[in-house]
């Protein structure tokens, strides 16, 4: 690769400070700017079939019959598959396998797959898909959380419409609320947000000469995808290979199964290579989305600002199936008290089925919704008491190692305190004069995000191979790089661990045929998980190759030391490079490849009633947002977002900053503009014209300040930066709007429609309008 050092960092400086903290250009940067990177949807295979999915036009219906006879006989058609063609279990799902691979008797959302078609060309596949005759008996759909819970609502699953209900409480929350000096009671609503990654869900599959099914598709957890394929096809795991690199964006939306099982089924049934790619509109209708929430909050405090109690009712709309819904609800439960000392609380949380598509993972994973509620509550309490918003947080935030709501500390070092300290003075700096109908406001919110799966066991494994012929170190791990930069940060970790130039390190990413299982890229853990596993593998490599070096040097292994790529021993002449030691090992038929698994620290048992509460490692971020509100147009525009964050030690500062900025910008979209609207379980905004994401013209100035803590369990002190920048944005923007207008938004997104209602309800709009009309 041909790259230059960033101007501020000379090669000498980098070697002096090592590879940790060096902003080397990303390893996949050059192929991407040259147009050489081949994404799964770019792949073309010889004699490849093209596939289409036959989908339900109804949000809720009984399937009376599926007739494929016409499609079967059409020219060019290689296969038409229905539920009865599935050899194994006709169910999938990341946590619970509750979603049919192809619907058999009932469909529960618009676009639910009923049949698959493969044909020699795209046009033939489309025509055949249209010729599959499915007879439905439409049923009344369940279109909202409220409807799902109302008596007499249609039952979407045999267990009813509540997928999960959890109550967790401590102390005497109800009486503590009654005796609180100040109580803030608010209902919050958050919307469905679409991932809108630029590369839609898609990929290819084919069968090897040895009968292995190969599936290449953008994904976030190739080993789990492989497991799910194996269950559905009824094939042993070793017959399946999944590759999930690269992906044109994911953000959580490719974490659960998208096309992988359908691709494998079609390849298996036809024996031919198959391509299946969802169109933008298909992705818009049936791709996953962020869970919409309804949250009823009652939060109390003493006169001097100490939080006394929090009553939270959380309702999450998971759509037709669970996917990650239960785990996402866990994160909301864990976040609804914030990083605060709240002696009394009651959390009453529901995961509810509706016919509104299928909700799943999305950057933040339940934290953004909860954060919007609790941080807005805190800002309102501060306002009621006339307190400084940073002061009320400093007063209530848990101390380092102080057990929080779920028995564990939210930080091991005083990182939140340092963040709040840095923020001091920044909130009072505002004062940009408001002009005409435009009002400038400033707002603040504090967020945390767990790194990893909390109490759920997670043992990421990785491997390192020392290639003596090419003098390269190859790092193998499977959690995919879909843009976040994990292959670059992990190459730096390996270079640092082996004290070699990073150019000596290559990465093989997200291929189940070549690498042990590193788990998912999700939960802000990709660098933390893969980095830790690689660090252990690197140590194994040095320990094992020291034996070879000792043999060459003719000294006892206990005397051999390793430094910057070479083994040596005091008193012995010469030294042995790590590659020569590997050659020695290889010469006797052993492959110089070293695996290791890391256990992500966890409590042995989750908090009762949950899957993954509590987490033990958290990243933290505080957002300060400056927003202009045009009272006349009822339009809010984010002008400036400043993040102060602790994501642990930065492995690649430019990469970490890029993650933080991108997260904040997606957060601004969530706060102000993005919403997939469902009406009667039908959604219309399914492409970039109707679902508006931030463009370059919409972005505020984003700045990021790191309080660089050192996480003791992290690789070289790293935690995770993927999600935490997103989490506080909506609450900070809402606070800025409240500061500008005197009324506080409690529903997302804060778009023109909602803002005009809000301003009108506060009497702001008509009064101003009438004054304008009077010529004032």
């Amino acid at each position: 690769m041909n790259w230059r050092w960033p101007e501020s960092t000379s090669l000498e400086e980098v070697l002096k400070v090592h590879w940790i903290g060096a902003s080397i250009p990303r390893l996949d940067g050059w192929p991407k700017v040259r147009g050489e990177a081949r994404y799964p949807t770019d792949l073309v295979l010889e004699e490849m079939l093209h596939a289409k999915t036959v989908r339900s036009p109804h949000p809720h219906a009984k399937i009376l019959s599926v007739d494929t006879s016409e499609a079967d006989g059409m020219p060019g058609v290689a296969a038409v598959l229905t539920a009865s063609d599935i050899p194994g279990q006709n169910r999938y799902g990341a946590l619970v396998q509750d979603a049919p691979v192809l619907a058999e008797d009932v469909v529960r959302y618009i676009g639910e797959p009923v049949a698959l078609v493969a044909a020699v060309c795209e046009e033939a596949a489309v025509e055949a898909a249209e010729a599959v005759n499915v007879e439905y008996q439409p049923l009344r759909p369940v279109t909202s959380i409220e409807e799902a819970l109302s008596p007499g609502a249609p039952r979407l699953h045999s267990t009813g419409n509540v997928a999960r209900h959890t109550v967790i409480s401590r102390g005497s929350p109800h009486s503590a609320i009654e005796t609180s000096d100040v109580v803030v009671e608010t209902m919050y609503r958050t919307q469905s947000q679409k991932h809108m990654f630029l590369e839609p869900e898609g990929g290819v599959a084919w069968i090897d000469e040895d009968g292995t099914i190969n599936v290449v598709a953008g994904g976030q957890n190739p080993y789990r995808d492989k497991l799910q394929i194996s269950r559905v096809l009824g094939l042993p795991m070793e017959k399946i290979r999944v590759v999930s690199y690269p992906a044109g964006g994911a953000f959580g939306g490719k974490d659960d199964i998208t096309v992988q099982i359908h691709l494998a089924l079609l390849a298996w049934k036809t024996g031919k290579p198959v391509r299946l790619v969802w169109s933008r509109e298909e992705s818009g209708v049936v791709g996953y989305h962020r869970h919409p929430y309804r949250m009823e909050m009652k939060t109390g405090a003493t006169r001097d600002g100490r939080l006394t109690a929090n009553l939270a009712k959380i309702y999450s709309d998971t759509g037709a199936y669970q996917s990650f819904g239960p785990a996402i609800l866990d994160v909301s439960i864990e976040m609804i008290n914030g990083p605060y000392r709240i002696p009394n609380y009651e959390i009453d949380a529901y995961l509810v089925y509706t016919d509104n598509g299928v909700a799943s993972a999305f950057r933040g994973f339940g934290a953004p919704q909860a954060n919007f509620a609790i941080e807005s509550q805190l800002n309102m309490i501060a306002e009621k008491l006339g307190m400084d918003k940073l002061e009320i947080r400093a007063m209530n935030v848990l101390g380092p190692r102080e057990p929080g709501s779920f028995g564990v500390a939210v930080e091991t070092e005083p990182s939140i305190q340092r963040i709040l300290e840095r923020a001091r003075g920044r909130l009072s700096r505002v004062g940009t004069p408001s002009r005409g109908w435009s009002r400038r406001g400033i707002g603040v919110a504090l967020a945390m995000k767990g790194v990893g799966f909390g109490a759920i066991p997670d043992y990421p494994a990785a491997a390192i191979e020392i290639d003596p012929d090419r003098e390269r170190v190859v790092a193998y791990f499977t959690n995919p790089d879909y843009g976040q930069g994990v292959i670059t940060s992990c190459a730096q970790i390996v270079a640092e661990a082996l004290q070699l130039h990073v150019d000596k390190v290559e990465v093989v990413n997200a291929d189940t045929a070549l690498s042990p299982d590193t788990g998912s890229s999700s939960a802000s853990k990709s660098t933390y998980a893969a980095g830790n596993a690689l660090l252990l593998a690197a140590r194994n490599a040095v320990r094992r190759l020291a034996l070879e070096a000792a043999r060459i040097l003719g000294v006892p292994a206990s005397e051999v030391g390793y430094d910057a790529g070479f083994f040596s021993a005091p008193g012995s002449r010469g030294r042995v490079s790590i590659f020569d030691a590997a050659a020695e090992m290889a010469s006797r038929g052993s492959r110089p490849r070293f695996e290791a698994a890391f256990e992500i620290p966890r409590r042995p048992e989750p908090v009762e009633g949950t899957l993954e509460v509590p987490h033990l490692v958290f990243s933290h971020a505080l957002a300060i947002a400056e927003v202009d509100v045009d009272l006349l147009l009822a339009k809010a525009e984010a002008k400036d977002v400043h993040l102060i964050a602790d994501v642990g030690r930065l492995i690649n500062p430019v990469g970490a900053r890029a993650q933080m900025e991108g997260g904040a910008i997606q957060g601004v979209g969530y706060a102000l503009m993005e919403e997939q609207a469902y009406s009667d379980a039908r959604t219309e905004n399914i492409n970039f014209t109707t679902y508006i994401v931030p463009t370059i013209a919409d972005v505020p100035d984003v700045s990021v300040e790191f309080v660089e803590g050192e996480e003791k369990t992290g690789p070289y002190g790293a935690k995770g930066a993927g999600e935490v920048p997103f989490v506080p944005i909506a609450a900070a923007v809402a606070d800025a709007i409240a500061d500008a207008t005197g009324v506080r938004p409690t529903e997302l997104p804060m778009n023109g429609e909602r803002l005009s209602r809000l301003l009108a309800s506060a009497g702001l709009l008509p009064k101003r309008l009438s004054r304008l009309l009077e010529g004032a």
Partner: protein
Amino acid sequence: MSTLVDISFTLNGRPVKVRIPPAKTLLNVLREDLGITSVKPGCETGECGACTVLLDGEPVVSCLVLASQVQGRSVITVEGLGTEGNPDPLQETFVEEGAVQCGYCTPGFIIAARALLDHDKNPSVEEVKEALSGNICRCGAYPRIIRAVLKAAERYRWR
């Protein structure tokens, strides 16, 4: 089968000839007939900018151009910008500034930016935003993309 037509045009400086259905889009001809996969079908309706190419030096979304419209004209994609040893300044600065994340939108942004810098080697931030407002980056690399374009402009000026 519909009738096929022969289309000749210049692709990245080299003459090419394809026999295609006349209504096939330039995007699909580039991807399917000519193996140019840097042009990405992010939406196929002209909304996302990921398939932007230079057509006689002007940026166009290739999903909205019929291949028959490019007869005799010049088409440039990122594959045609710079070489391994001598990259285009935009390719350098996109990598240096961390303006690439998932990379799916990157070729389209680079082409749109190249069109801007071909006309104006000293654009303001507002002009960069204007020129790139038809391209979507869902990873949110926008601040870095702006910096990369301004930095590349500097290098173009020194060329």
